[in-house]
């Protein structure tokens, strides 16, 4: 525990609490706000790990756009006022939690027995925006174009799916 900085610990705890809250709170909008806090926590985790551009991009994209989008959809589907489904839904709550805990145990075991526990390479120098830019434009120019294409397709697809069909509304 000694090598990890205090900031990292605090951020990790805050993110975990926010993530658990996002999953367990009754009110839907409360879940969405807790989710936004979790995203902000993860963004600041990236900042503490030195990936400045990624952390700020995460803050901009997730907290600025996706959290607001989720909140909009909650309100559009009238989830805002009434309380969400009861906390312990009938049917399959236990199996879900059991599966999740087994996977967590598996992952934790893997982490504790992996190389990560002891040998530690020199931490990478934080990537400057200019360096990211050149790498993005040099090696990853194809994925960049494909991502652009995919985002446009997703945008148009989302609008078409969510648009109110003029003719066949009952």
């Amino acid at each position, binding site marked *: 525990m000694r090598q*990890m900085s205090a900031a*990292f*610990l605090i951020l*990790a705890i805050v*993110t*975990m609490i926010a993530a*658990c809250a*996002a*999953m367990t709170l009754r009110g*839907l909008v409360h*879940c*969405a706000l807790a989710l936004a806090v*979790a995203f902000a926590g*993860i963004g600041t*985790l990236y900042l503490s*790990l*030195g*990936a400045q*551009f*990624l952390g700020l*991009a*995460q803050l901009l994209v*997730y907290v600025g756009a*996706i959290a607001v*989008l*989720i909140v909009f*959809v909650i309100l*559009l*589907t009238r*989830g805002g006022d009434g309380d*969400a*489904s009861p906390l312990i*839904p009938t*049917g*399959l709550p236990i199996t*879900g*939690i059991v599966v999740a*805990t087994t*996977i*967590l145990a598996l*992952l*934790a075991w893997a*982490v504790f027995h*992996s190389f*990560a526990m002891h040998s530690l*390479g020199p*931490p*990478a*120098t934080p*990537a400057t925006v200019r360096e*990211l830019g050149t*790498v*993005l434009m040099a090696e*990853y120019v194809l*994925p960049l174009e494909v991502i652009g294409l*995919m*985002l446009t397709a*997703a945008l148009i*697809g*989302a609008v078409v799916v969510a648009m109110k069909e003029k003719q066949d509304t009952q």
Partner: protein
Amino acid sequence: MTPLAGCLLVSSMLFAVGLAGALTRRNTILVLVGIELMLNAANLNFVAFWRFGHHAGVSTGVIFGLFSIAVAAAEAAVGLALILAVYRHTKTTDLSLLTGRAQ
């Protein structure tokens, strides 16, 4: 308990919380929230290995993180559009009611 292990533990816990939420909650929006959390957990691994991994320095981790954020944003947009369409059609976002219906 190196920082890398710390990061990996945090991301696996996040992943577990996301998975538990996605599997147990009955409201479709919360399932989508669970998926978003899982995606973020994976993202955290990218950055952790870029920062502390053996061949640290090559900034592929951050680039992958960026692409994964873009993909997750597109996925969230389309997912929410689908939820809206389903809601307009069936007036409910409760998964248990949706599964059994003949469309």
